[in-house]
């Protein structure tokens, strides 16, 4: 992760994409979201969604998986250049999560993040808080998910 001071409001990162197979959709749903339209093709065909689709939590969790791996690759490159690497801390939460369209079996979602705000942490002087807008679009270019999350990022200038 970049240090808090080096992060600019407006910077955008393409995080990569993930294909949601019917098998993965059902495996996630069996454990965490066993509604019929996430589990069974025939029941899904009769549902308001019209076909098997991923749990919204599956679509959202996949964003996190790609974000963490993207930052890890960037950190590896920083280390290879001999640059220091900042720590990404915990997140207090997120808001305005919208599942804009169903993610159907076979869909590929490409995810991105954009920094929309940054501020020093009032309670933890070694950390700053960034707000990021996270989005996913399917293979047709249609937005399927969007949310704004907050995360702690380490500061370069540590308080004594």
């Amino acid at each position: 992760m970049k240090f808090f001071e080096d992060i600019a409001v407006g910077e955008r990162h393409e995080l990569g994409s993930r294909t949601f197979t019917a098998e993965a959709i059902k495996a996630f749903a069996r454990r965490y979201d066993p509604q019929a339209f996430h589990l069974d093709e025939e029941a899904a065909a009769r549902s308001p969604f019209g076909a098997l689709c991923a749990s919204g939590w599956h679509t959202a969790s996949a964003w996190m998986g790609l974000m963490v791996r993207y930052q890890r690759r960037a950190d590896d490159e920083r280390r290879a250049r001999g640059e220091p690497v900042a720590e990404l801390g915990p997140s207090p939460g997120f808001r305005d999560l919208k599942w804009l369209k169903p993610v159907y079996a076979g869909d590929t979602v490409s995810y991105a993040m954009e920094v929309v705000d940054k501020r020093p942490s009032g309670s933890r002087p070694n950390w700053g808080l960034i707000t990021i807008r996270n989005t996913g679009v399917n293979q047709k270019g249609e937005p399927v998910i969007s949310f704004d999350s907050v995360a702690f990022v380490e500061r370069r200038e540590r308080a004594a």
Partner: protein
Amino acid sequence: MPQLYWEDFTPGRVFEHGPHRVPRAEMIEFAAEFDPQPFHLDEEAARATMFGGLAASGWYSCSVLMRMMADAFVLDAASMGAPGVEEVKWLAPIRPDDELHMRASVMEARASRSRPDMGFARIRYELFNGAGELVMTLVSSLMIGRRGAAGGAA
């Protein structure tokens, strides 16, 4: 057939569910796929972080809360899914093998203007750990079929 329709989600109604155990192996398996940060994967590495020990990924917590909602009432309801989530707050770490309890309180119910066969219920969820501490809150609206409407239920 669904037991619960939009008309049953009256403001003030509370659904409780628990205990729901979050096994260490499941927490780590989830993190390995969806949130592979050291403090979600490895006890030793987690000790040196702000978490002070292995903690569940917030996305695992959301997914577990979804499962608890499903078991508490969603699977019995004429659920048509949810358009999104207004807000999630991760207030305290969820630890391996803890037993969680959920309280879901209906805050508001409104009929859909465009879809006479359904309505929205705005619900606040609170998730407590085994010691009774509030670890997470979530506010979200559920789309639910109306009683007597054709179709509606999945």
